[in-house]
């Protein structure tokens, strides 16, 4: 039998949700198996780093890399898989723009460790802290060194394609897999390098079923503070801070449709440098106040704007990277 192209999937700093999403494509997974030889997928099968290290450069055709780069191990694997793969795909929000783990960049590494090891919620009477290197009788023990800032994949290695979402919607994944297979069968061309796959042209509002009117916000509120939510009216118009307007479409507006504000997991839409900046700009524009004092009062109700606007995009944001990690086309 002829050699099937090799497929790999790896999780760096991530929750594993992306893997679930992949399995969520149901029967389609059989097509993957039919067309690929899965060589490395820690979640799904037993494999050792050294096996990968022994491969030829570029031996793997397609690697779906999810999770962000939090420590030296993540970084090592990113570089390794980059070397070994023809196509490296930043898969899911973490790999794309840092996602929830990226919010750690708002604190110093020291603060992070304090929270992890010395807050009341931690049972650590001796106040033990992890040591990257420990001398024991048998020799030196090391654990992966913790990087001071968390970075999306593209800031560490060169990335071929991006599939955003937390996690990427299964139907989008399926579609991408179809494309890849079509390419393998010579029926289609690869999209240009750096393309975004499984994303729409517009923003979540485009797919949102709620009715929208001209916007004037006098008071912001939070979903838990609302007595009742109009099931058909735009959430923003009800004073809820919804990231939909500045988030790439592709998810089918699941959250707003269900009455929850869009958290922004699909990242900025095409050609936008920084989703947060767009939210700041557009929200501030529709606040219906002219008096500085009143403006402050209104904005006081917009709790933790940084967290709200950058819940997923912080590590990939214009400011955090100093580099437009998000430079599409």
């Amino acid at each position, binding site marked *: 039998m002829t050699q099937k192209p090799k497929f790999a999937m790896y999780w760096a700093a991530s929750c594993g949700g992306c893997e679930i999403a992949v399995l969520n494509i149901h029967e389609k997974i059989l097509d993957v198996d039919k067309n690929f030889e899965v060589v490395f997928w820690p979640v799904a099968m037993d494999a050792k780093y050294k096996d990968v290290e022994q491969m030829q450069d570029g031996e793997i055709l397609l690697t779906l890399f999810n999770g962000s780069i939090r420590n030296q191990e993540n970084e090592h694997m990113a570089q390794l898989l980059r070397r070994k793969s023809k196509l490296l795909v930043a898969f899911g929000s973490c790999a794309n723009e840092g996602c929830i783990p990226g919010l750690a960049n708002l604190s110093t590494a020291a603060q992070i460790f304090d929270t992890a090891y010395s807050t009341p919620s931690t049972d650590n009477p001796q106040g033990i802290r992890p040591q990257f290197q420990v001398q024991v009788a048998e020799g030196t023990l090391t654990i992966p060194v913790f990087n001071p800032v968390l970075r999306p994949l593209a800031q560490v290695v060169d990335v071929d394609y991006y599939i955003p979402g937390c996690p990427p919607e299964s139907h989008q994944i399926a579609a991408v897999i179809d494309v890849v297979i079509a390419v393998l069968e010579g029926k289609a061309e690869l999209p240009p390098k750096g393309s975004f796959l499984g994303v729409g042209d517009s923003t979540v509002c485009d797919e949102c079923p709620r009715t929208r009117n001209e*916007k004037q916000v006098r008071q912001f509120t939070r979903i838990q503070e609302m007595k009742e939510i109009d099931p058909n009216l735009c959430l923003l118009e009800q004073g809820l801070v919804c990231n939909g307007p500045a988030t790439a479409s592709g998810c089918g507006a699941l959250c707003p449709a269900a009455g929850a504000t869009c958290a922004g997991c699909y990242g900025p*839409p*095409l*050609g936008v440098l920084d989703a947060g900046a767009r939210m700041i700009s557009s929200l501030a*524009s529709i606040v219906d106040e002219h008096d500085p004092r009143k403006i402050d009062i209104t904005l006081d109700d917009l709790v933790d704007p940084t967290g709200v606007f950058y819940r997923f995009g912080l590590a990939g944001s214009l400011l955090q990277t100093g580099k437009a990690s998000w*430079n599409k086309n």
Partner: protein
Amino acid sequence: MTSSSGKNGNHRVGVYVCHCGSNIAGVVNVFEVAKWAQENLADQGVVVAKEYKFMCSSLGQKLIEEDIQKEKLDRVVVAACSPHLHEKTFRGAAARAGLNPYLCEMASVREQVSWVTEDKQMATEKAKAMVSAAVARVRQHEPLDPIRVPINSSTLVVGGGIAGIQASLEIANSGFHVYLVEREPSIGGHMAQFDKTFPTLDCAACILTPRMSEAGMHPNIELLTWSEVENVEGYLGNYTVTVRKKARYVDVSLCTGCGICQQKCPRKVIDETFDAGIGYRKAIYTPFEQAVPKFPVLDRDNCTYFEKGTCRACEKFCAPGAIKLDDQDEIVQLNVGNVILATGYDTFDARRIPRYGYGKLPNVFTSIEFERMCNAAGPTNGAIVLRDGKTPPKSVGIIHCVGSRDHKYNSYCSAICCMQSLKFAHMVKERTGADVFNFYIDMRTAAKDYDEFYQKVLEEGTNLIRGKVAEVTDGGLFDEKPGQLIMQVEDTLIGKQRRIPVDMVILAIALEPRHDATAVAHQFGISCSTNGWFTEKHPKLDPVATMTDGIFIAGCASGPKDIPSSVAQGSAAAARVVSYIQQKELSLEPVRASINAEQCSGCRICNNLCPFNAISFDEVNLVSEVHQALCQGCGTCVAACPAGAITGTGFTNEQVLAQIEGLLRVPVHLETAHPVAV
């Protein structure tokens, strides 16, 4: 490495650094700048960089033109003075050389560098930065063409006061059509209410009525009285205005203006408007004899027929059967190229200052009431009498600045009250021989022949007391003569409190913006000052234009004025309009926003950000659209669009971001290295 100069990689850019004699070269090392550009901006596509004594000179321009052709330049950067000064010049040069003018960018190294910086070295570095920014920016430029719009030759004039009448006549006389919209039943405005006009004391009616009838009969003027503007759409050259012609209940095609209906109407009503509340009219009425048009209107709120369904006296007696009790409001659409707002002013409500007793003490009058009283055609046929309607006053007190120059009411000066009050003083003396006391804070008579008039009034023996009246009380309370009014005042010239008994008090009330001024401003897309008057484009150099092209203002709408200035403004606004109409079509800067329908999600955040109503929502495709000719190019929507679907020509994200990178490329100071932009 630049994130924003992704597309159009290889350009051929020419950089031209101007000495401006020693203006720039005296501080900035222009040679170094040019050299630096040549060497360090090669990666940015700079192929030539030259300095020259005077770039704006014909030789300097020639230099650029030649290079464009010789060096096949497709972008030009001129580092010289402010673009507000010479942008046109250099764009012109580029155009002459066959390059789209909008592919030429300027760096203001004179106004922003050489003239304002002491340290020559830092100046030179800043100049470099600005050049590199201009280069980075111009690489992102795209060829543009100015927008052309035709101009409709009809004009809408709102407000039939003297300013509006004047403007209408000027335009009509130069052969163009005018729609004159007036809220009241007749044109004439406040001036028609007055008796005499200062300082010449010629009778207002005598000089106004000819103008009114001229406007009424002019073939190019279409009067829409008893009408109000409902809605305005469009832009310079092409406005569509919706006007509501309120039901008159009189068929003007049949009415002869004989006035029998008014005689026969049994219903007497206080005339709050024209007679300022001190006279009566009928329920069906023309505000005054010389009204233009002469057709009456029926005031349905006070008409017995509309209350009880009976009466119909007017109908019975009207020979031509012009009374039309089933009349309805009519909506008309006007297409005009320009608009002149001459909406005039309201008067201050003297009840707001209870200590002057207006509304409580019968013999306290406002200036506008007194104007009506003096008017020969007014409720007293010109007799100056007390509220009882017969007794002439033996002494009269006139208070200046009522509601003006007072932080509690209006902090501004109403400009006309001093002269008006002096005019009153004169008329009281002339007609009743009563003693007159004028209470003023400062005397403001600064215009032709005004101070002469003041002198004249002084010589007539008017008592001028410098001081703000504290209060007006009923003398009846104390041993002072009953029925008299006591004016309590500190005479600041002698530094004493005085209690001056008078029979009649006249309050020279302030001029205020129309109660609906802000609404009107919003309707026409112009702005109001903090005091509520319409703001002019430039208070000195462009006093009759507004920030919105094609909307002009005249008369008191933009602030208190006397009749001469209002008339002058009427003519001025007319002249501006005619000059536009003569151009037939207009070319506008192509700095405009446009929406990419693909990317637009129809979130509608941009929809009411535009003060010029240029953004509309396409209900069918659920996307927003920008109307090119309405758009003024401020770019607010561009910055606000959450989807990044709106781009603004001339100031695109790419252009600005590139410019920022360019600026950051050069450290502020040689010694302080800075991380370069990425």
